[in-house]
């Protein structure tokens, strides 16, 4: 392998790599704004200037190919002086907006001004003024003054989102970014430009002015918007989710996620219509009751029916653990009618990330055995059997059977018993005789299997009533660490909900020792014993990147610290 020397350190590189790439692979960071590992090289920011021996001038590390025997200095006097000059140049027209700017705290320009700037400006003149609030698209706000013209967003829309919607206009210090005439910056991936924007020029209309990043905690999770299962971070303040951002996983989503997943998969967690505590239908009205009353009522009522009169509906929104517990419960009752509903939008798929299947765990639900058992019926027949009054009791876990279907609503109201696990009061829950409050994906441990057969872990980011951020090892913001119960910023609503596997375990617990689980790890251990595809897997084996089922090897766990900005 060819070798080059960066700062006295001899490193190997692959032929064709640039100096910046060779350095990055060996832990040497060369400052950069316009260069991004996933985008083409633009070379316009000039902050990656380095000194290469035997070259007459400084060269930019992002577009200079590394060659054998090359000697590079990133900390020489000449380099540092040039870098300082470039930083000073950037800061001439960049507004001193940091107190107002949402990027503060995760801003590359701010970071570099500290580490590579000189700390003062020689510029006395009036800064160039541009438009501060430009709505580039339905989800993006553009502040032209803050832009440092790195062109990352332009290259992103062209190369990654495959929709060439942005461009530079004007020249010199008047240069700015705009959409093409009559166009709006509205492709399904626009919000990724907010992530890669090294300054606060592009901000998300949904997130802007909500909080400071340093006041939130972040938790590694997986998006539930479709069967891709993009790796995400959940950002929480005062027990409320404020945003989702993508997390690097080269096998699944690289470093991107779609706008739909980012905006529409977390708001229901803190919604007003959350089921808060178990509810029983008393005289036609859902009344909040104690857990024990709900458990005993549900169990007693279920026992009134013959196994053939009962049907179970699992869910591809629920984790493997939930579905596994449900199947085991159904088996223990002798019920064979069990299935789950598919939620696909035919045609809503692309070659980038978005998948037709809008649930995160279809493969997992099938692996856990959520399908008609020997002699049982699938979802279509179950509906027919309800119509003909042969199925009288229905147990629905974390799915809405009705949605906008009024015929289904009539059908379900015929049932003698409808038990529902629901996070929010959807139409199915409103019809139910017993409603158990189910934790959302952001409130529990568990695993999903995506369409690539990759099993991935989710962790709780929001605490429910039974949980404690400290005792349960959840991620904490500074506020969470030092707050007391008397502080208003610690009094965020905690819903009285539990993960479905726990509800099932407690519901059947009185009569069934086999379903006694204390933690999601216990359930997973059980799954790893009985489901062949997951044989000998351990939760710790999944790392934060997941494992492709069938390829599992001991020690294949990978934990990657996303560092791609």
């Amino acid at each position, binding site marked *: 392998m060819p070798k080059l020397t960066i700062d006295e350190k001899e490193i190997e590189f692959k032929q064709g790599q640039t100096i910046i790439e060779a350095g990055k692979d060996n832990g040497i960071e060369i400052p950069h704004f316009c260069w991004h590992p996933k985008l083409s090289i633009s070379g316009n920011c000039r902050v990656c200037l380095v000194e290469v021996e035997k070259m007459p001038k400084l060269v930019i590390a992002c577009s200079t190919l590394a060659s054998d025997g090359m000697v590079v200095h990133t900390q020489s006097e000449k380099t540092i002086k040039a870098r300082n000059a470039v930083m000073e140049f950037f800061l001439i027209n960049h507004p001193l907006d940091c*107190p*107002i700017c949402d990027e*503060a705290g995760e801003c590359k320009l701010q970071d570099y001004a500290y580490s590579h700037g000189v700390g003062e400006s020689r510029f006395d003149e009036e800064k160039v003024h541009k438009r501060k609030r430009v709505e580039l698209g339905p989800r993006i706000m553009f502040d032209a003054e803050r832009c440092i013209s790195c062109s990352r967003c332009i290259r992103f829309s062209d190369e990654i989102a495959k929709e060439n919607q942005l461009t530079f206009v004007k020249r010199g210090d008047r240069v700015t970014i705009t959409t093409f005439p009559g166009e709006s910056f509205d492709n399904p991936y626009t919000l990724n430009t907010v992530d890669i924007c090294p300054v606060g020029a592009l901000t998300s209309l949904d997130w802007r*002015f*909500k909080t*400071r990043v340093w*006041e939130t905690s972040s938790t590694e999770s997986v998006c539930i918007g479709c069967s891709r299962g993009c790796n995400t971070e959940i950002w929480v303040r005062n027990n409320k989710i404020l945003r989702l951002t993508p997390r690097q996983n080269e096998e699944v989503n690289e470093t991107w996620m779609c706008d739909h997943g980012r905006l529409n998969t977390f708001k229901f967690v803190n919604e007003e219509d959350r089921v808060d505590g178990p509810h029983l239908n008393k005289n036609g009205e859902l009344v909040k009751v104690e857990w024990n009353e709900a458990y005993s009522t549900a169990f007693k009522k279920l026992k009134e029916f013959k196994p053939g009169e009962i049907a179970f509906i699992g869910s591809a929104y629920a984790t493997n653990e939930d579905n596994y517990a449900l199947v085991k419960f159904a088996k223990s009752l002798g019920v064979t009618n069990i299935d789950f509903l598919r939620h696909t939008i035919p045609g809503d798929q692309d070659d980038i990330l978005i998948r037709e299947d809008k649930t995160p765990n279809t493969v997992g639900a099938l692996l856990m055995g959520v399908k008609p058992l020997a002699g049982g019926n699938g979802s279509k027949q179950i509906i027919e059997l309800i119509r003909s009054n042969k199925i009288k009791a229905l147990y629905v876990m974390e799915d809405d059977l009705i949605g906008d279907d009024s015929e289904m609503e009539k059908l379900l109201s015929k049932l003698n018993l409808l038990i529902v696990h629901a996070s929010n009061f959807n139409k199915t829950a409103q019809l139910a005789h017993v409603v158990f409050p189910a934790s959302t994906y952001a409130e529990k441990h568990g695993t999903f299997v995506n369409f690539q057969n990759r099993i991935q872990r989710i962790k709780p980011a929001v605490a429910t009533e039974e949980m404690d951020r400290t005792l349960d090892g959840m991620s904490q913001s500074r*506020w969470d660490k030092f707050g007391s119960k008397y502080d208003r910023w610690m009094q965020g609503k905690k819903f009285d909900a539990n993960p479905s596997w726990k509800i099932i375990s407690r519901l059947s617990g009185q009569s069934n020792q086999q379903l006694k689980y204390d933690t999601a790890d216990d359930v997973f251990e059980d799954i790893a014993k009985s489901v062949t595809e997951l044989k000998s897997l351990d939760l710790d084996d999944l790392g934060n990147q997941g494992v492709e089922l069938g390829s599992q090897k001991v020690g294949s766990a990978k934990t990657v610290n996303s560092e791609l900005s």
Partner: protein
Amino acid sequence: MPDKKRKKDLTFAQKLYLPEIFKGLALTFKSMLKPSVTMEYPEVKFVPPAAYRGRPVLVEEKDGTERCVACGLCSRVCPALAIEVQPEETELEKERYPKLFEINMIRCIFCGFCEEVCPEEAIVMSKDYELVFTSREDAIYGKDKLLVPVDQLKDRLEFLRNFK
């Protein structure tokens, strides 16, 4: 061992008692004639100098808006975690204002870091030292109690400009 002379051993003159009494009374009468330095608080209020660090307050501009842009630096620097700020967007030029600004006066230690870190001179230490509350909830001061018209804070703002 010989008797050691101790400090508390009285001299002959002191043992006579009366001379010392008159000495003491002379001092008392002398002080009675000097001007009084006692302040009759609470009938008379102490007005502290500009350097005094009373409770932190928010500057209210002449048009009734808060000067604060809700950057959250005071909240971040506060060693006692007394300050909570929640921003929101505004149509004004400053783009951002505090939707919620609360100082928990039980937590506050009057260190003045919030004032020092503020990039807008929007939070300053006032001359107000009379802080009374009867419950934890009362001790949390919201914007209603924190906002003070800029005219009343001239002293402190001038002091900051001269000495900060």
